[in-house]
């Protein structure tokens, strides 16, 4: 029963994506919505990304210093480990999990409200492909903005780690050396590539839950929760595959 329901839901998701990935009817209108969504989904998320990344970078650095550092380890280990954790997992996967909560619930509740207040029906009556008009700019905007958010996240994590040296937790030269030690550029690309997949998952899955809402405000709330839970689970699963494929 559960498996057949899941397959049916996946089928409906694919059907919706088939409608979403149609060419926009008016590029002018698509462009307007696209820019609006880049601001709403990307720029408006910058604050939370910066704040969380700064503190997580700082905390990782402190934890490693306290738990791993020993006289047998080189001084740069703390900074180096912080950098690798930020680049390889936090700035792409964990940050996208956080965004699944913020952006995913935003997308699902916005589209869900449009559905229950008949705004989606109004678009259909006008002869507009509502799925493409409402969802495509959101997917395109999040995919465009996510690399910038990932880069900001990593940078803020490094700054957070560096900040711990300013309050005397760790030696400033050790952090600087660690952040620069044995840098592998591919890790940045890997992080960016993974985030593009996660951005598609967050935006399309959340939009699916919002677009298929039936009922009222209670159902919009439920769709919003389902969107966050499903996006998070899919991000975690795909992270395993992407990491093993890209490493």
């Amino acid at each position, binding site marked *: 029963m559960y498996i057949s329901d899941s397959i049916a839901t996946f089928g409906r998701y694919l059907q919706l994506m088939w409608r979403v990935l149609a060419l926009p009817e008016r590029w002018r209108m698509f462009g307007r919505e696209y820019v609006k969504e880049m601001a709403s989904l990307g720029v408006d998320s910058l604050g939370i990304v910066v704040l969380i990344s700064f503190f997580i970078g700082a905390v990782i650095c402190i934890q490693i210093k306290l738990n791993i550092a020993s006289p047998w380890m080189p001084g740069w280990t703390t900074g180096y480990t912080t950098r690798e954790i930020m680049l390889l997992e936090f700035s792409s996967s964990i940050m996208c999990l956080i965004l699944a909560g913020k952006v995913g619930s935003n997308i699902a509740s916005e589209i869900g409200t449009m559905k229950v*207040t*008949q*705004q989606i*029906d*109004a678009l*259909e*009556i*006008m*002869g507009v492909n509502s799925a493409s008009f409402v969802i495509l700019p959101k997917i395109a905007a999040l995919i465009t903005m996510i690399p910038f958010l990932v880069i900001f996240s990593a940078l803020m994590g490094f700054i957070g780690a560096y900040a711990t040296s300013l309050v005397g937790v760790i030696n400033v030269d050790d952090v600087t050396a660690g952040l620069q030690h044995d840098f592998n550029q591919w890790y940045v690309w890997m992080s960016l590539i993974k985030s593009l997949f996660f951005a598609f998952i967050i935006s399309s899955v959340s939009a699916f839950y919002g677009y298929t809402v039936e009922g009222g405000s209670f159902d919009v709330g439920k769709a919003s929760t389902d969107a966050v839970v499903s996006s998070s689970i899919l991000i975690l699963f795909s992270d395993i595959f992407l990491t093993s494929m890209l490493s």
Partner: protein
Amino acid sequence: MIELKQIRKAFDGREVLKGIDAVFEDGKTNLIIGQSGSGKTVLIKNVVGLYVPTSGQVLYDGRDINAMTKKEKALIHREMGMIFQSAALFDSMSVLENVMFPLDMFSDMNTADRIKRAKYCLSRVNLAGAEDKFPGEISGGMQKRAAIARAIALNPKYLFCDEPNSGLDPKTSIVIDQLIHSITKEYNMTTVVNTHDMNSVMGIGEKIIYLANGVKEWEGTKDQIMSSTNESLNSFIFASDLFRKVKEANH
């Protein structure tokens, strides 16, 4: 002209519409009346193509909307305007942007002409001055008027209204009814209004269809309704003391 032939619609095996035949004529305000749950909204959604009937045909000037290609369907939708129960204005857009939306999507006018046309439509529904307000900042009656302005922006051939007076006070309801009626005449549109508001029936009902439990029970004009002997219709129409007294006074 819109013609319905034996429209049936079932959800999960439960039949909501049980073979509706009807004709909605050009230049007339056609009313679909009936109690809540009688199938009015389902019928109008079948007519506009939001639902596909289980069986039967919806003919627009002889062409079945459900047999049309995707492109033909999109074109016929551009000839429709619809006013929803909740007005269904786009929250994220101002009143002016809402009215401009169909023009932005489907007209080749330049920006100045689109703004001019949208402002004309807003003035036609007495909403001049509310252009920059957002739907959340205006009253329910103003939202309905803005929805009418958006519906007529592209000079539609067909206008559909799903309970346009729902949630409005009697005075505002009359204003909305008169507006729909005068616009119907002005543009010679085929207008179909879903309502259970008896003031609308008596005020603008040129042709009335009465639905009960998914069946067309009665069809006629507002003058014929007063002398109808259909029991189900009479129990619906004359449920209120006021209309009962009007009927008694007429007799």
